[in-house]
């Protein structure tokens, strides 16, 4: 409760401009929102070309961004303490929804990722992208850091239960992202380096173990990643075509709406998972550098905001949201350029479709809410 007093009595208030005052009142961080807006605008320009000049696609995406922005602004107003207190309920609800999805999928004898709520389809796994790091941060909030062995076991359980439920959907990409979001909380909490190395070793063993549980198509993706030429028309096709698209774009690109790989549909998933390659083909290395600069700016700003928050829950959660955002970018760009296996992770704020835009912006909304309770004077 002391923060409120500090906030209300701050002398820094006098230095704020009119616009900044509005932003401050709305608990919005200007640089972060400008960075996000630039990425989204760039994304819409690319999407128009990548969708084969489909204005409806652009408009639908604009609608999603609007929805995400609304969620962001709304969440930014939420009291961080309320957020923290409701975290276990959110987490439990998410797990329950995942179970329901798994059950429906089991009955329907097929891959099932969403719940049909009549008006829209809701993916519980999207919710877990936020709920899992929140739960980890919640758990560590009251505990001394770095976390001890017992805490690590419990945290692992908190992460792995929803991850396992998403893996069986099966949605390896989202499962990995949820696990990474949770793991980042633990790393930011100060997980010791030697424990990290030990866990990496365990992870290698786990990967070997997981291999035996993978679906054939998932295995194929991994194998094809290791050598795309083995299956040039099958699973390797995506990687080969996306590398051709990026490589043929050169430094300056072929020009907007003039990428032959993208426009003639040689590039699969051109408006969704592989839209990074469209930018590479049509806007070249320069276009990709501009995008990467925007991303790095947003992530840096988000990390900075995280360091400015006051309590453990806020720090860990904000830090995880910031770093996870970069992980998205890196996994997608790595996959499209052939550095990582094809795991079906969208390029944040640029790829078309799905509820990921809303989740991402909601995450930034939470981040800004957490930042609103920042320390305004050095401790």
């Amino acid at each position, binding site marked *: 409760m002391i923060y409120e007093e500090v906030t209300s009595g701050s002398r820094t208030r006098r230095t704020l401009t009119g616009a900044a005052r509005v932003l401050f009142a709305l608990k919005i961080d200007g640089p972060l929102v400008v960075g996000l807006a630039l990425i989204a605008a760039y994304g819409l320009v690319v999407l128009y070309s990548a969708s084969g000049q489909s204005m409806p696609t652009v408009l639908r995406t604009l609608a999603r961004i609007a929805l995400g922005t609304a969620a962001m602004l709304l969440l930014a107003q939420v009291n961080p303490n309320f957020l923290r207190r409701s975290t276990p309920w959110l987490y439990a609800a998410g797990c329950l929804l995942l179970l329901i999805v798994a059950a429906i999928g089991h009955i329907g004898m097929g891959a099932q990722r969403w719940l049909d709520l009549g008006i829209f389809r809701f993916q519980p796994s999207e919710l877990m992208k936020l709920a899992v790091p929140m739960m980890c941060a919640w758990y560590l909030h009251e505990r001394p850091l770095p976390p001890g062995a017992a805490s690590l076991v419990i945290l692992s359980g908190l992460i792995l239960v929803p991850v396992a439920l998403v893996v069986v959907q099966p949605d390896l990409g989202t499962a990995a992202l949820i696990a990474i979001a949770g793991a980042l909380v633990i790393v930011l909490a100060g997980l010791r380096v030697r424990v990290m190395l030990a866990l990496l070793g365990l992870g290698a063993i786990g990967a070997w173990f997981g291999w035996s549980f993978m679906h054939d198509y998932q295995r194929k993706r991994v194998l094809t990643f290791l050598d795309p030429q083995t299956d040039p028309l099958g699973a390797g096709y995506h990687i080969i075509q996306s590398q051709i698209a990026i490589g043929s774009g050169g430094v300056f690109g072929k020009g907007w709406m003039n990428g032959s790989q993208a426009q003639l549909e040689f590039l699969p998933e051109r408006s969704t998972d592989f839209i990074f390659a469209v930018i590479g083909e049509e806007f070249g290395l320069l276009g990709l550098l501009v995008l990467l600069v925007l991303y790095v700016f947003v992530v840096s700003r988000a990390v900075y905001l995280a*360091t400015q928050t006051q309590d453990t829950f806020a720090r860990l959660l904000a830090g995880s949201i910031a770093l996870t955002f*970069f992980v998205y970018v890196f996994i997608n760009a790595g996959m499209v350029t052939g550095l990582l296996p094809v795991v079906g992770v969208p390029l944040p704020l640029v790829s078309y479709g799905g509820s990921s835009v809303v989740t991402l912006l909601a995450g930034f909304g939470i981040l800004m809410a957490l930042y609103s309770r920042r320390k305004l004077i050095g401790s």
Partner: protein
Amino acid sequence: MAAVRIKDHWREQRLFDQRALIGAVVIGLATLGLIARLFVLQVSRHEYYSDLSQGNRVRTEPIPAARGLILDRSGELIAGSQPAYQLELVPEEVPDIARTLDDLVELGLIRAEDVNELERTIDSSRGFDSVPIRLRMSDEDVARFAVRRFEFPGLDIKTRQTRFYPNGNLAVHALGYVGAISEQDLKHIDRAAYAGTSLIGKLGVESAYEQKLHGTNGYREVLVNAQGRSVERQGAFVPNLKTKAPTPGDDLILAVDLKIQRVAEAALAGHRGAVVALDPNNGDVLALVSLPGFDPTLFGRGITAAEYGALQNDIDRPLFNRALRGTYPPGSTIKPGLALAALTYHTVDPQARKYCAGSFHLPGSSHIFREYHNEKHGYMDLDDAIAHSCDVYFYGLADVLGVDRIASFLAPFGFGALTGIDISGEKPGILPSREWKAKAFSKAADQMWFPGETVNFGIGQGYLSVTPLQLAHYAAIIATRGKIWKPRLVTAYRDQTGKLHAVAPQSQGEIPGVSAEDWARVVHGMIGVTQHGTAAAIGAHAPYTFAGKTGTAQVFTVAQNEKYNASAINERLRDHSWFIAFAPADAPRIAIAVLQENGGAGASAAAPIARKVLDAYLLSPDGKVKPAP
């Protein structure tokens, strides 16, 4: 309870800041890694990927070259290309393919029995590819479809070039035909050069001159998308694409004179047999007939199994090229050759008259060799023996000459070997000799040559077998008194600029060692054939002198496994009728061989056909002999 750890907010904040810093460094490194990767793809390997991208988006579509025409010696069209209407279906634009096909059956545009096959073809095609479902539509079919067209979305009538034979069956065994490229064809053609070509020469001139007729296909670069569909624009842009026009095939000018060909086919019509007429002075094939024939158009439009089966199983074997591949004993037509041999080897005195009592037997043998129809010719010299085709005279002549000398003398006339005509498929026949017999039979007892076989050789029976082409070639050699020209169908070709390239006739030398006097003697005997000999009735009132020789080839067996009615058996057991001739006798312009299977004696069946062909070639409409060109 061990030491309870208490939260130290200051320390935790520092720990977090430290971790966040490490995170920032990792982000920086990862970003640099990505940029390095992008540099490799977009700068170092840019050209490599550009090539791949270009290969992706541009497909080269062949433009088939127009196939060369085939013309007769006076420029009349024998084979050309013609646009044909065909009905094509684009599967993805047809709402209900099964119903559409049923409706087309009802309209009479496709046959009910073809529906399943068509459905399979449509299923295996890409949805946007136009699938031909009915070839060569008549104007009436086109009209019938046009009226109901609105009921058939996704169907359209297209035109495409097909081979067109305006004269139908005429000269089909010289011409050959074109058909769909088979797996067999693919083994010996350059597949790249044939991309876009759908028809290839299968037999005759169409096959032998395939390379000249085919031309060079062109190509057109087409922008394609990932489904292989050709598209106009690449996103917002229309790219620059290359086109290379095809070079049409060369037109061929044949030696064949269609007027002569028609006369020959009409004269032989209704019979099985062959007519080959050559220009003895250069080997030009003036007519090449083998009857029955077939319609070459059937193969160009895709012959059905039923149609092919009917041709294959026809007892008259219309697909069989008798002129090139039918081998028959030459009968008495060989006698002029034997006379030349005996004269050249001086084993006969042409003036000496020998008595023919209707039979001959070798000394010390009881086997009697009879005269045909048991005629008795009385006293005969060589001239008479040729004119009247006296078997007894030639039994003796052959016996004295011996098989070795006969075989070595006849070999340069082309017996037992290919004439080298410029289309493929001809058979060499058999020129028997001691060596041949030793090789041809496996049992020692059969490998020996018997004197009686030489006697039979004297009248062109026994092992000797020849094709009608060989016999025409032989007549041409006698006509020119020993000059040998390789028979040829193509005399010139015209390239796409209209320039004519003559093909030089190929001389194969001369018959060695025969004196002019001996040639004259034998030719005189052959003139006798048409004036007072076996073919006197045929030669009567000819405004030109012509030399000829009748022949009758015995038919020994009929295949045991063939079943047909008694009258057919009788007809097919009759002798084959031969006639060879050349005219005018003193300066021959045409040499001919006529074979009528089961026609009986040469004089009655084959000779009248030969006369009609000679008249057609040599006489102008007023009945006078045309001046030599």
